[in-house]
Structures are given as C-alpha cells and as structure tokens.
C-alpha cells in the first residue's frame, strides 16, 4: 500500500495522484479485458455491485458500529422494486388483484389505464434509482427503529431476523395477490436505458451497444454505469465520513453514553446511518435487477448478507479504500477461481480433481481464518495517528495511570 495512498488529509498530492492512477486503470480495464471474452468484464460488473453494497454496509457497521446481519434485505428491496416497476410483473399483479378483489382491482385499472394492465409499468432508470434509494432508505429506518436500544450480539440477531423476513416475504408474496411471483422470481426486467441507449444492446444486435458511433459489448456499457455509481457512492461516503454526521456516527460507535452526553441525538443519528446505508443497498439492488433481467428470492439469502459483511470486515472496517478492496477481492476471486481452476486441472491431470465450487468454499474459509488471525483489523485498516514525539514512555505512563484509577 505504500505506492498508493488515499489519505487526503496527510498527503493530498499523493492521494489525488493515486486516485487518478486507479481511475485510469479502471477506465481502460474493459478494453484490455474485452479480447479475453465478456465473462471477465461481467465478473467485474458484479464486483462493482458488491463494492456498492459493502460501502453502504460500511456506514452502518464501520462508522456507526451497528452490526447488521440482514443488510441484503435492502438489496432485495431495491431489486424487487425494480422488478415490479420495470417489467410486465405489474400486469400480473393487477390480474391477480382483479381475480381476488374485483372492486379494488377494477378501480385501480380505471385509474392506471389499460396500457399498464396489458404491459405492466416500465419506469425509466432516472426514476428507478432515486425511488430505489428512497424506498430502501425508508425500509432502513423502519427496520432500524425497533432495534435502537440493542447493541452488539442482540442487534445482530434481530437484523438477521429482519433480513430473513424480507426474503421469506419475497418468497411467499405471490398469493392471494401476486406481488413477487414467489419462488419463481420476476422475469423480463427492462435493461437500463440511458439517453435512448439500451445498455443491453438493441434486439438483434447480439448485445452490442453503440454509443456515439462506437460499438462495445453490453457488459462494458454496464461496467461504465456501475463504475460511475461506485465513484458516486465513494464520494458521498467519504464526504459523510469527514462531516459533523460522520463524527457523530463514530462517536456512537466508540461510546454511546458519552455521545449522548455530548448532545448527540443518538436515535436520529442511528436511524440516519441505517437509512443512508440501506439506500446504497437499494440502488445496488435496482442495478442488479436491471443487469440480470431477473430477480428471485434465492439471490438474497443470509449467506449474501454475511458475504457483504465479510467484505467490510476483511477489507478494513470503517476504512473506505479497505472496504473497496475487500469487496473487490471477495466478489471477484471466487469467479476467477471458477474460470482458472478447472481448465488448469484439466490441462495438468487430464480431468478435474477438485471442483471449483468446493475449492472456493475451502479457500474462502481458509482466507477468513488467516486474515482474522494475522490482520484482525482487516487487510487495509484505517491509519492510526500515533505520531508520538517521545516513543514508548507514554504507553508506560498510560498503563500505570489506568491502574492507579
């Protein structure tokens, strides 16, 4: 990490230079990767979504110190909202409503018109993204409100429950009114369309997107969109971290009673952390739904919540560059393994000895254990400000002082 330094307060010139280097690297990446096939860029697309999630969770867990094991619920909220408002699903919903409750169903149809009854709602991305952020933020506050008095393990258990509740709702909300299509999931979600350009490519173009006369694969177009959103999320979280609110969050994490005594309204500030974090999850979820064109409850299981939490903790809890690195490593490495391990074994031994999926689980566990043993603060933790003029003497003084107390 010596070459790249992102601490703007210490060494701004080096920090901005590092950021520029990283950004240029990221901008040319898809062009370098394109000749090797679209799957590599697709992996990075998913990694970018996970980075967004990890950065959102970092606000809750890293800054405010509120352990949230149900964070994937907000990803689900964003994804399902997109599924409902940008696919034919709303037509199915209306149909089931008319069958079950004709009065409400028919009056809703007269309000919305036959167009929506036929084809469902198809909102533009410009509406979907803010709406997903707002709805997920609302859910964040709703789920945060009952947990305000809980800390640590208790909070973790309750949030875990909330995460599961949302997933089970998605799994079962197909009767009597079909909101989510149950375990089958919502299909045919619209791809994102920005300024008239369809990021999935026009029909018959074999997933080629043409921007200003330049043609690129669909995954590259999504890559640039997700990169833009990621940069925005990084910008917003960095600004929040170095603000009055960011300090209040960290103060609550460090000592809630002292934070209260300093006049911080911990209830409001905690709820704000929950909803800010959730809104990033909601945006990532909306992007996920449009990118895949399909959502189902399987994508939002507890293991996903834990994976996102692992990204935050492994990378360096509360430290934005660390969290980004954790997200990139944990999201991309399994995919890379899948692409590398099996062909390699076939070449070496003629057949596959250990399946990539098995190896992935093994390495995942091993990596977790090793990192927690050797770098408990994460791979890239926040720098400590220990610029002590007189070396070790302070430590002694401090420990003796504490003992005397």
């Amino acid at each position, binding site marked *: 990490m010596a070459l790249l330094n992102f601490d703007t307060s210490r060494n701004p010139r080096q920090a901005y230079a590092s950021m520029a280097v990283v950004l240029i690297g990221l901008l040319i990446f898809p062009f370098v990767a394109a000749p090797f096939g679209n799957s590599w860029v697709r992996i990075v697309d998913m990694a970018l979504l996970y980075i967004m999630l990890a950065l959102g969770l970092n606000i809750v867990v890293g800054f405010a110190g509120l352990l949230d094991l149900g964070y994937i619920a907000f990803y689900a909220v964003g994804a399902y909202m997109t599924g409902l408002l940008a696919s034919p699903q709303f037509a199915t919903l209306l149909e089931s409503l008319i069958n079950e409750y004709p009065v409400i169903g028919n009056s809703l149809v007269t309000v919305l018109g036959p167009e929506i009854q036929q084809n469902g709602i198809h909102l533009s991305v410009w509406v979907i993204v803010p709406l997903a952020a707002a709805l997920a933020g609302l859910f964040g506050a709703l789920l945060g409100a009952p947990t305000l008095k809980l800390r640590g393990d208790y909070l973790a258990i309750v949030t875990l429950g909330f995460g599961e509740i949302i997933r089970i709702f998605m799994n079962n909300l197909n009767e009597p009114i079909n909101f989510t299509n149950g375990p089958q999931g919502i299909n045919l979600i619209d791809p994102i369309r920005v300024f008239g350009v369809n990021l999935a490519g026009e029909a018959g173009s074999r997933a080629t997107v043409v921007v200003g006369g330049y043609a690129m694969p669909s995954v590259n177009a999504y890559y640039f969109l997700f990169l833009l959103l990621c940069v925005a999320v990084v910008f917003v979280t960095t*600004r929040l971290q170095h603000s009055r609110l960011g300090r209040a969050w960290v103060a609550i994490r460090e000592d809630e009673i002292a934070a209260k*005594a300093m006049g*911080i309204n911990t209830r409001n500030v905690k709820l704000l952390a929950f909803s800010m974090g959730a809104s990033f999850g909601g945006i990532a979820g909306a992007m996920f739904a449009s990118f895949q064109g399909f959502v189902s409850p399987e994508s939002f299981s507890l293991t996903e919540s834990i994976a996102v939490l692992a990204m935050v903790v492994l990378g360096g809890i509360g430290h934005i560059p660390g969290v980004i690195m954790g997200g990139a490593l944990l999201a991309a490495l399994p995919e890379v393994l899948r692409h590398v391990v099996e062909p390699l074994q076939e070449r070496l031994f003629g057949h596959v000895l250990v399946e990539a999926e098995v190896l992935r689980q093994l390495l995942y566990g091993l990596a977790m254990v090793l990192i927690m043993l050797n770098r408990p603060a994460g791979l890239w933790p926040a720098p400590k400000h220990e610029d002590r003029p007189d070396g070790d003497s302070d430590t002694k003084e401090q420990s003796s002082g504490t003992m005397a107390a």
Partner: protein
Amino acid sequence: MSEPVILHIAGVNKRFGGLQALTDVGIKIMRCQIYGLIGPNGAGKTTFFNVITGLYQPDTGTFELAGKPYSPSAPHEVAKAGIARTFQNIRLFGEMTALENVMVGCHVRTRQGVFGAIFRHKAAREEEAAIRRRAQELLNFVGIGQFASRTAKFLSYGDQRRLEIARALATEPQLLALDEPAAGMNATEKLALRELLVKIKNEGKTVLLIEHDVKMMMSLCDRLMVLEYGKPIAEGLPAEIQSNQAVIDAYLGGSH
C-alpha cells in the same frame, strides 16, 4: 445571562428497587462558582449527578437552569440545555483523534446535515472550519494543543482527563459538571488540574465538582454540599463544612 442562580434543583427522589438512593436532594448553584459535592463512598453523589445530566430518570424533582426549567429526560436534551459533563471512568472516543473528540463536542451547537456534508456548500465549509478552529482553541486552553492529531486512547491519563474537559467545554455549557476529575491522578497532575479549574471559573463558567480529595475540595470550592445515604447533611462555605458535626460524624463515624 444576568440570572445569578445558574442551577436550582429541588426535591429529587430516586429509588432503585428497594434502595432509596436519593431522598429529597436539592441544590442551588450561583454563577461563576466552583460548587463541590462530597460524601463517603456510596452516598449517592454520582447518582445525583446522573439524574442532573439525564442519564437516570428521577422519581420526583424540579429542575431549573439559569431561571428556565429544563427536563432531564435524555442526556442529549440536557447537553442542549447547557449542562456538560465528564465521567468518573474516562469515556473518550478512543479511536478518534483528540481534535475530533472535541469536534464531536461541538455537534450540539452546529446544524449541518446530510446535504451540507455531501455538497459542502459555503455555509457547511464555514461551519466546519469554525468547528475545527474552536476545537483547537479548546485543546490549547486545557493545555494539550500539541496533541491534537493524536488518537485519544494513546494520550496519557492526565491528558485524557483534560481532553474530556475540553470536549465538555465544546458544548458551550452554562454549567460544567465534573465527576471525580482528579481520580487516579498524582500530586503534580492534581495541581495542574486545580489550575485548569480556576482558569475555567475565571472564564465565567460555573463548575459542579464531585471529588474524594477533601483537602483539594476545601481549598478549591466556593461552596460545598455533603451527601450521606442519599440525603444532604450539610451545605455551606468550606469553613462551615469543616466544622460541621454531622459531616465529621459521617466521615469519621459517630462515636470518635
């Protein structure tokens, strides 16, 4: 600001289950005084303190700060009303720098929210700069200005106590309430703390002080109150307290 009585509390009762922790405790503190609260261990000093600052809910009692009634229903409301406190066992924000700790103290008198944080418009930048300036001034005032960028938990014990006082002062309190600030300090550190408290008083602040060191309290405080078993047994000038029979009995046992 002309109101001479800064804190007027009367009729406070507080019961923990079967234990009557405070019985009809009242207090009246004049502006620009150092007011001491002493008593044997378990007399209810810290309980009273926690009631004043909103950490515990009293069963009864009336509360007035600078002539205005305030409700000690939540600590952040009390801080907003103008009482800042420190803790018996230091409660700093350990992972934050000294400067950031004091900047958190400025939270209650500032107002920038999410939009200010993200867009950093002019008002937000100015407020942030003012917070930073004020925090550095306060660190200088308590004498640890040179440690501004150090992580709080790496400060020496005496400096952590000072930092807690600076953080409390950052809330711009009318009354500064210190819970055993000299606990665990050596003689030199106590002397320096004394100087700091006198300096704070000379700045026009009022200080409420709990302390075990009776010698220090007698020479430092303008007035004192003595608690025993949750009841006030004496109140007055240090000299009066020193010669009060009930106080002597409380400290030395009745039949000395």
